[in-house]
């Protein structure tokens, strides 16, 4: 169900031929219909991502709203030679969510030490990632091809919003190791997904 969200507003026209890239470029011309269409197509993925990072419906909805307003106003700056529309949009959503997480981290730091919170998260990180996507073979297979350390790096950064510096401190490993581990992890993920297309 979650992976095939039914269009909720069937009233809007949905030209099946228009790519997300086309829609985004039409937004830049002020085409609000294209924006509605784009929102309908991409908001479920975007919302799932914001929820994953923020773990709170209200925060996730705020982030989604801010992100889509930014997507509209910056649509003229999208360059299809640099990224797919889907990826461009998800990047904006992810940054919004992560910015929020980091602001709250800063605000909380006085009250709560970093370690305590993540010590508990650490042990079931891998299980959680695999568990969440239990119904989705392709992604599960790709993730399970990563080493546990690579999965952990992806999880801490992408889903918990830690910076590479925080990941290094949290895992007590050199920053350089974190950098290469993140890149290796995502390269491997990419390779696995391509191989299983």
């Amino acid at each position: 169900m979650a992976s095939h969200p039914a269009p909720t507003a069937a009233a809007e026209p949905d030209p099946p031929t228009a790519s997300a890239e086309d829609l985004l470029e039409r937004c830049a011309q002020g085409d609000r219909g294209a924006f509605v269409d784009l929102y309908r197509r991409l908001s479920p993925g975007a919302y799932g991502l914001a929820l994953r990072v923020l773990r709170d419906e209200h925060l996730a909805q705020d982030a989604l709203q801010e992100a889509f307003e930014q997507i509209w106003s910056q649509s003229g700056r999208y360059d299809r030679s640099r990224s797919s529309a889907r990826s461009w949009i998800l990047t904006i959503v992810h940054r919004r969510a992560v910015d929020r997480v980091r602001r709250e981290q800063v605000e909380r730091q006085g009250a709560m030490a970093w370690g305590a919170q993540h010590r508990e998260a650490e042990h079931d990180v891998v299980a959680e990632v695999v568990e969440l996507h239990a119904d989705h073979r392709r992604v599960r297979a790709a993730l399970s091809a990563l080493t546990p350390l690579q999965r952990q790096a992806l999880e801490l950064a992408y889903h918990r919003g830690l910076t590479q510096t925080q990941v290094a401190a949290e895992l007590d490993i050199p920053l350089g190791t974190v950098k290469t581990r993140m890149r290796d992890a995502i390269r491997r993920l990419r390779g696995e997904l391509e191989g299983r297309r």
Partner: protein
Amino acid sequence: MNDENADIHTLSGAYALDALEPGERAAFERHLEACEQCRDEVRSFGDALSVVVDESAQEPPERLRDSVLAGITAVRPLPPVTHDSPDDVVVALRPGRRRAVTAALAVAAAVLGVALAGTAWRTVTLQDEVSRLSAAAADVTTVLTAPDARIATATATTGGRGTMVMSPSSGQVALVTDGLAPVPAGKTYQVWFVGRGSVVPAGFVDGGTAGTVLTGHPDDAVAIGVTVEPRGGSPAPTSDPFLTIAIPAA
């Protein structure tokens, strides 16, 4: 450490995962402009992450769509970043009094003692500003959301207002404008850092609602000013500033 530069390519993964600090992110984005290999890598990483994201898709509540649409009703998409695109709006600004070049901004700097008192400064708790300014460019967002970001706002003489955001940790200063008159045909809005006795170019900003990260922040800057200049910009200001924002002492 300086070995950061030697292996900046390895940051592609952390960049795609949004795991860079704001300063690092800006540095890597500059690197991306010059490195095709990293651009390709970042693109493919983004596509891989999109696939993972889609697996946890979840329909947001219907009312959120309405609220998003309401949020953009009064917003026009920003023009592309290229500055050589033809201006499509012809609204002349009131021609300012012609005064000798840099003098105007120097005067602005001189009266800053007064201006400073009236400038609203505060630290952090940026949520409301961030959401109000969500129209700003992504690189501006980096400055806006820096934990140590500070904000100053001033009203433009021609309408609208400007907000300056500076983040000492990243050394960056961003200018976000709100409701400025459209840039007149053949002109540009040029931003200046006003120092004690010097005025240096700091970049350009669009009309309407726009944001830009300023370049070349001099240590002795006491204000930023914005003037109307011929398209392409001028080496020194040729008109009075219509917007001046004071930078308070640290």
